[in-house]
């Protein structure tokens, strides 16, 4: 995928190269800034992405001096609790890799076990290969990758799928980047039984849980993207809501926050509907009031909302 630059510089050691200009050309700073702006927290993740971006940029400049090195392996493993932004970051990864000229298309293909493993003998290989071909030029994101390997069933076809993946990860390093994602403990077990997989993945990134103030910032970003806003009082109410919700079971970080906001929107709509006859302003339609939040059962009984017992499996209440 990486071709030698046509306008390669002469092989002198003192030819200067402008890192700043290179950075500007690649537009990668823009993506990194966007990452900083739109992703709250996630310090270790951002650091790792920055490192990868720097490596690819330096690699690009080295090529100008004809300092050849093998293309770096960029297969990654994202571990973390539900709702910590693994998919979101994977999506960004494609864009970053494209800007740095590592991926040609930079699209993301999200798959789970169902898309890779077949149901009968001879079904798995074509299925896996088809997915891999679709992902070429971009990023293949395998969610809950540990389900690929089921040790309790020795006739399971998952192993076949893993074998093909390993082969492609080694031979077609230039063509696609594989990102595995899943919960930390299960992923560790998965790697334990597939040491080949572990050694082929260069970057193991752990997504930390969010703190309460980070979750509030996320909530505000989510609302802004949907053209809603908190009133001052509502923001205070939501700040109280978050720690209460965090203590309850099935807390799924940003996903729980999104569900809570969806329910607040529901109550807001209901509230506006109840006072029919009065004129509504644009502000009314946009604003979430404290009542919309305090009506939650989390406040009253310290229990999950009846209609919203959203869990780690990510079901969105209606």
């Amino acid at each position: 995928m990486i071709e030698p630059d046509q306008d390669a510089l002469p092989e002198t050691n003192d030819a200067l190269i402008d890192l700043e200009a290179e950075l500007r050309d690649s537009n990668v700073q823009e993506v990194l800034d966007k990452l900083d702006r739109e992703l709250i927290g996630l310090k270790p993740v951002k650091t790792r992405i920055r490192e990868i971006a720097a490596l690819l940029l330096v690699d690009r400049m080295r090529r100008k001096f004809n300092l050849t090195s093998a293309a770096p392996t960029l297969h990654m493993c994202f571990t973390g609790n539900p709702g910590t932004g693994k998919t979101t970051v994977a999506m960004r990864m494609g864009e970053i890799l494209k800007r740095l000229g590592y991926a040609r298309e930079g699209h993301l293909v999200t798959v789970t076990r169902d898309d890779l493993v077949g149901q009968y003998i001879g079904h798995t290989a074509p299925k896996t290969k088809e997915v891999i071909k679709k992902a070429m030029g971009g990023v293949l994101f395998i969610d809950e990758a540990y389900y690929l390997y089921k040790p309790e069933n020795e006739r399971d076809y998952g192993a076949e799928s893993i074998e093909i993946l390993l082969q492609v990860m080694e031979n077609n390093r230039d063509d696609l980047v594989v990102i595995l994602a899943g919960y930390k403990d299960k992923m560790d077990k998965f790697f334990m039984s597939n040491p080949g997989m572990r050694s082929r993945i260069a970057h193991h990134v752990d997504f930390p849980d969010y703190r309460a103030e980070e979750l509030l910032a996320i909530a505000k970003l989510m609302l802004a993207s949907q053209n809603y806003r908190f009133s001052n009082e509502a923001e205070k109410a939501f700040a109280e809501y978050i720690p209460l919700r965090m203590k309850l079971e099935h807390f799924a970080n940003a996903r729980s926050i999104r569900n809570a906001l969806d329910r607040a929107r529901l109550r807001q709509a209901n509230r506006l509907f109840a006072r029919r006859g009065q004129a509504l302003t644009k502000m009314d339609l946009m604003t979430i009031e404290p009542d919309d939040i305090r009506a939650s059962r989390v406040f009253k009984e310290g229990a999950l909302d009846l209609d919203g017992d959203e869990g780690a499996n990510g079901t969105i209440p209606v």
Partner: protein
Amino acid sequence: MMTNPGNRLTQGQFSFLPELTDAQITAQIKYALKHGWAVNVEYTDDPHPRNTYWEMFGMPMFDLKDPAGILLEINNCRKTFPNHYIRVTAFDSARGVESPRMSYLVNRPKKEPGFGLVRQESEGRNIRYTIHSYATDKPENERY
């Protein structure tokens, strides 16, 4: 045949040009993918011009973004059938078109015996002409 030295099969696009390199094939596939056409790899050892339905190598490849996957299949096919004709077709599923938009050879046998002219006498003194591939005198898979 004077116009076709070496009896090279001339079917589809680019067939009068020298063999396409992999980079050129990739560029052509990229063009097809840009238009949203599904690209297939097909092979045959019966190159009669009326033999329009060649065997498919694997499944048609829908929803691909990048030519690398197709080139992979082409190379797999070349490895499996080094002495067959292999072509790449791009199918346009747009309503009203629904037919291949591109078709070009990416592999051909080392020795191409070509076609002979067959004359058949019919009613009166009429003669019917047709062509016959010398290769198809032998059974399948032994032709080239």
